[in-house]
C-alpha cells in the first residue's frame, strides 16, 4: 500500500461505528475516501484505523422534512445530491453545487459529510451551509442526536465541532421561502480545479428592502467567514447596483488570506468582494420581485 499499514473495520450500524471510534482514538471515519485516502497515501497524517461508514444506509437517506426543508444524510454522495428530484425541487442550489464539484470521479464517491468534516478552506459545502443556516446533526454515544448550527460547526482548517467518537449524521436545511434567495459564486483556477475565491449568500427580502442576509466567504481563512459588516450594510437597502457595491466594500471579518502559487492574498480578498457582489445579485434575482 501507499499508505502506512492500518486497520480497517466496516461496522453495520451508526451505533457500532461510533463505538469503534470511541474505543480507537487513532481511528477515523472513511466516507468517500476522496480526501482521506489521498492524505494517507502521502503519509501526511497519523491514522491507525479506518472505520468505513460509506455503506451505512442510515447515513444515505435524502428526506423531506415536514416544514418543507430537507434532511441530507452525511453519506449521500455528490452525484446523488445532484440528481435527486427532491433536492432539485426544494433547494436546487445544493444540487448545483454538488453537480459542479470537481470531476465525475470525485462526484461518484465524495460525500456531503466528508466534505464538511474535511473543512478545507476551499471546500464547496461549508460556506453554503453557513449561508443557508443549516443545522448539523451529530451521532454520539447514545441514540440521541445533538445538533450544532453550521455557523458553529466549522472550527478551523480541517477541524470541526465533533467530539472524539462522534460522527456527522445528517445536515438539516430549512425550506426557502419565495422572498428568499441564495447565491453561490466561485472563481476557479480552471474548470475542474480548486477555488481561488468563493462567496455564498442567503437573503430575504421584505417588500423593497433586504430584511435579512447571511454573506459568507470561503477560501480566505480558517473557516467560512460570515461578513457582519457587509450584511449590516445590505439590510434595509433595496439591492441596487450601487448599494450592493458599497456594501461589499465594507471591512471584511474573520479572514486571513494566504497566497500560494495561484493567487496572492491581495487578489483573493479583492475577488472575494467581487464574488460576494455577484452572489448577492444572484440571490436577489431569485426573490420575488416586490409588488
Amino acid at each position, binding site marked *: 500500500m501507499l499508505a502506512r499499514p492500518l486497520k480497517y473495520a466496516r461496522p453495520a450500524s451508526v451505533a457500532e461505528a461510533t463505538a469503534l471510534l470511541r474505543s480507537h482514538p487513532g481511528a477515523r471515519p472513511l466516507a468517500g475516501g476522496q480526501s482521506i485516502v489521498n492524505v494517507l497515501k502521502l503519509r501526511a497524517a497519523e491514522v491507525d484505523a479506518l472505520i468505513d461508514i460509506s455503506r451505512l444506509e442510515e447515513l444515505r437517506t435524502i428526506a423531506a422534512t415536514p416544514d418543507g426543508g430537507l434532511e441530507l444524510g452525511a453519506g449521500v454522495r455528490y452525484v446523488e445530491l445532484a440528481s435527486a428530484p427532491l433536492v432539485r425541487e426544494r433547494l436546487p442550489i445544493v444540487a448545483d453545487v454538488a453537480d459542479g464539484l470537481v470531476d465525475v470521479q470525485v462526484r461518484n464517491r465524495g460525500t456531503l459529510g466528508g466534505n464538511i468534516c474535511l473543512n478545507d478552506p476551499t471546500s464547496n459545502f461549508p460556506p453554503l451551509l453557513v449561508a443557508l443556516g443549516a443545522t448539523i446533526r451529530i451521532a454520539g454515544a447514545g441514540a440521541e442526536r445533538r445538533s450544532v448550527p453550521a455557523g458553529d460547526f466549522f472550527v478551523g482548517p480541517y477541524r470541526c465541532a465533533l467530539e472524539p467518537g462522534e460522527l456527522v449524521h445528517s445536515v438539516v436545511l430549512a425550506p426557502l421561502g419565495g422572498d428568499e434567495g441564495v447565491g453561490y459564486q466561485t472563481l476557479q*483556477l*480552471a*474548470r475542474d480545479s480548486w477555488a481561488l475565491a468563493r462567496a455564498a449568500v442567503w437573503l430575504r427580502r421584505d417588500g423593497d428592502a433586504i430584511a435579512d442576509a447571511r454573506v459568507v466567504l470561503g477560501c480566505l481563512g480558517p473557516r467560512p467567514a460570515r461578513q457582519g459588516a457587509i450584511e449590516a450594510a445590505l439590510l434595509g437597502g433595496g439591492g441596487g447596483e450601487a448599494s450592493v457595491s458599497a456594501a461589499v466594500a465594507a471591512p471584511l471579518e474573520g479572514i486571513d488570506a494566504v497566497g500560494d*502559487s495561484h*493567487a496572492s492574498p491581495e*487578489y483573493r480578498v479583492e475577488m472575494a468582494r467581487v464574488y460576494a457582489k455577484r452572489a448577492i445579485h444572484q440571490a436577489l434575482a431569485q426573490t420575488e420581485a416586490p409588488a
Partner: protein
Amino acid sequence: MSVQDAAAPTKAASTIGTPVRRVEDKRLLQGQGTFSDDVWMKRMGYVHFVRSPHAHARIGDIDVARAEAMEGVYATLTGAEVEAMTEPFMQIAPEPGSRMEDYALAVGKVRFVGEPVVAVLAETRALARDAAEAVEVEYELLEAVVDSLATLSPTAPVLHETIGKNIGYQDTYAWGDIDWALEHADHVVSIDKLHFHRFSSTPLECNAAVVNWDRGTDVIEVRSNNQMPQFAAMFISPAIGMPTSKLHFVSQDIGGAFGLKITSYPTIAACMLLSRKAGRPVKWTEYRSEAVTASAHGNERTFTDIKVPVMADGTILGFDVKAYDDAGAFMRYEPLGGVIWSQVAPGCYRLKHLRVEYTQVLTNKCPCGPNRGYSRLQHLWMIERIVDIVAHELGFDPVELRKKNYPQADEYPYETPNGCFYDSGDLPRMLDLGLELADYDGWRTRQAELKESGGGKRIGIGIGSTLDSGTNNFGQARLVNEHLPFSGNGEAAHVKLDLYGEIAVNLGSSPQGQGHETTAAQTVGEILGVAPTDIHVKAGYDTASHAYVGFSGTYASQFAVTGLGAAIGAAEKLRDEIRLVAATALGATPDEIELADGVAGVRGDEERAIPFIGIANLVYTNVAALPPEVADAVSLNCRYVYRPPFEIPDIETKTGELTLTYAAQIHVAVVEIDEETGHTEILKYVAIDECGRRINPQIVEGQVHGAAAHGIGAALHESFVYDEESGQLLSGNFYDYHAATAVDVPLLLTGEIECPSPRSPNGAKGMGEGGGAPLSTLCAAFQDALGAGGAVVTDTHNPSERVWRLLRERSDAPRPVEVVSR
C-alpha cells in the same frame, strides 16, 4: 503453387494522404498495450528512491542499516557507491560547463528538491517505500537559488564547485549587422524584459523501466520507456564502463514522452547498478508526484535588453537580445538548447540582423528535458511578442504587420540569415485562412460594440505564428562545443518478406503514440503494392532485433521524414529483390515486373505472375531452384538508413542548414476577459497547420489538437513555481500543477494548407511539437484586449490574477517598452 491463381494485377490504391485507422488503437483502447510497468521478470524487486527534501544541501552520513534489516529488502544503493563504481556522465557543454559532475544518484550534495539520493530495492513496491522511509540521511542545509537572474550574482550560492559559477554555457550568436540596423532604423523599440515561464508536459505514463543485469552474459536488459535509447546508451556506457553492445533496450508501448523521457538515463543507470548489486531485475515505476517534481521540466527563459529596429513602412529589421535560459540543476541534454533555437533564428519573419547573447544558467530547480517545442518555442514566442509589441506601440495593424514581414510564397526556399532554408510554405495564405475560419471581421465588430456598451467584459483577438523545425542536423552541436564529433542525422528501418510471403517491418524509432505502425504500413504498402492492413509493423523498439543508428528514437519532429524515409528506402530495396526473383521465375526482366495486391506480375500479361509466397519459397526453402547469381543477390531482408543531405555547419559564422523541414502553425484566438476578475474565456480558437504532405491527416490532426491543448494549458494554468527562500516546488503535484483537461480546452477549429517539402523523401515535414503557438496567440489576444497605451504583456503565463493586474496597471506606471523614432 499455381501461377494461374493469381488475381489480376490491379495496383492497390494508395493510402497516402487518407485517414487510415491507426493500427495501434485497438490494443491501446482495449487495455492490451504493453508498457514498462506491465513487464514482469522472475525474481524482480521494486525500487523506491529516497529523494532530497531540500533544494540545496551537503549530504552528511547516510544510514541504510534499518532499511536493509527489514525483511524482504534486497539491497540499497547510495551516491557514495555510485561515485566509486562509475564515472560522471559525459557533458555536451564545452569548458567550464563540461566540468559538471552528474551521477546516477546525488554525490556529495543535493541540488534540487526531489533529487534521488538513495535507491532501495525490495520484494514489493510498498515495502520498498516503507524501507526508503527508514533510510536516514543527514543534510547540512545550503542557501538555494531559484531565480534565473539572481543566480548570476557574485554572492549567489554556487551549485557546482567544479564550475565555480552558475553558468553552464554562454555564447553570442550574431548575423547581419544589428548595430547598423539600430543606427539606421526609423524607430527603435526597446523592451526591458520578457519572461517565458517554466512548465512541462504530462505524459499519461510516468517514467518506468525494468532493468536486469544478467550475471551470466553481462547483458543489461532495459525494458523502459526511454524515447531515445541510443542517446541513453551513449551516455550510460562510458559512465558504467559497459560496451553499448551489451546494453539491450526494449520498449513496446510508451504513454507519451514529449522529449522528457530522453533524460531518464541517470535513473536507468541507477537501476542497472542496483540490479548488479542485488543480482536481481529491478522495476522502477515513477509516482506522478515524482514525475512532476523531479523527472524533467521544460526550459524557462528570460529575455532582457531587447532592441528592435523598425522602418517607417513596418519592415522589422531584426533584434538584439540577451537570453538567459534556466536549465535547473544539471545540464543533461543541455546545452543543445543553446543552439537549437537558431533553427528558427528569425522566426516566421524576414528579419536580417540578429544578435542573441545566450547564457544558460544553473539554479536549484529540477533539471530540464527537451520538452515539446524545445528551445524554439521560447525563441519563437519572444519574436511573436516583439512583432506584436511593435504593432501595438507603433500603431501598425497586427495582421498587416505580420503579412508584410512574413516571407512571401514565392520566396521559398527561404534562406535565413544563419543559412537555414525554410523549405516551403505560405504564411500569408495560412493567416488569411485562419482569420476567415475565426470570423475575424465579425469579432472586430463585436469587440467595438462591447467597448461602446461597457458591461465589464472585453474581447481580445490574437494571432500566433510559429514554426516546427524538424529533422535536426546534429552538426549544430558543434556550434555549442566545437569538439563534439556529431553531424547529420538519420534513421534506419528493416523490411523483410517473411517465410510465407508476409511483409514485416521494424523501425529504429521508439514511438509514444504517434502512430508509426500505421504510417509505416501505409508507406511500405504503397511501394510493395499491398494494403497497409496486410503489413506487420513490429510494435515498439528493440536494440537486439531492430535496425538503428545513433540518432534513432522518437523526438524532435522527424519521423515523417527520417523514419518514413528509411521505410521507403528499405521497401524499395525489397521491391527490387522481389522483382529480380519474379523476373527470374517468370522469364522476364525486372523492370517488366509490377507489384500489386501481394503478387509480382509481368506488366500487361495477366497469365505471368507469382504471389509473394512464391517469392519467399524460392529464396528461403527452394533456393536450389534459383540461379546462384540471383540467390546470392537477394536476402529478402532489407535494411536501409535514410540520411538527410546535410553538411557540417560553419563554426566561425554559426551558419548552416540546421534542420531539413519547417512545418508552420498559425493560430487565431478570441478571448473574453472579465474586467473585474481577469478571468479569461476562450470564445474561439483556430489552428491552421502546414506540414507538407500529410501521410495520415487524422494523425496530424491529433498532434495539432495535442499541441494546442498543451500550449493553452501552459498559457493559462500550468506553471512550476518555486519558493524563492526555500527552493521548494510549490506546484509539485496535480492539485497545484493544473494540466489542462478536456473541459479546459475550447473547441478547436482546424484548417490546413499543404506545401510539400522539396527536401524530404516523401514531401512530408516533421510535425507534432506545434511551436508553442497558443502561448504567442493568447499573449497577443491579451495585448489586443489591453488596447493602445495599455499595459504590455511580457510573460507567457497569464492566469486570472496576472490579467487582472495588467488591466489595472496605472497609466503613469513605468512601462517596460520604449520607442525612439527618428
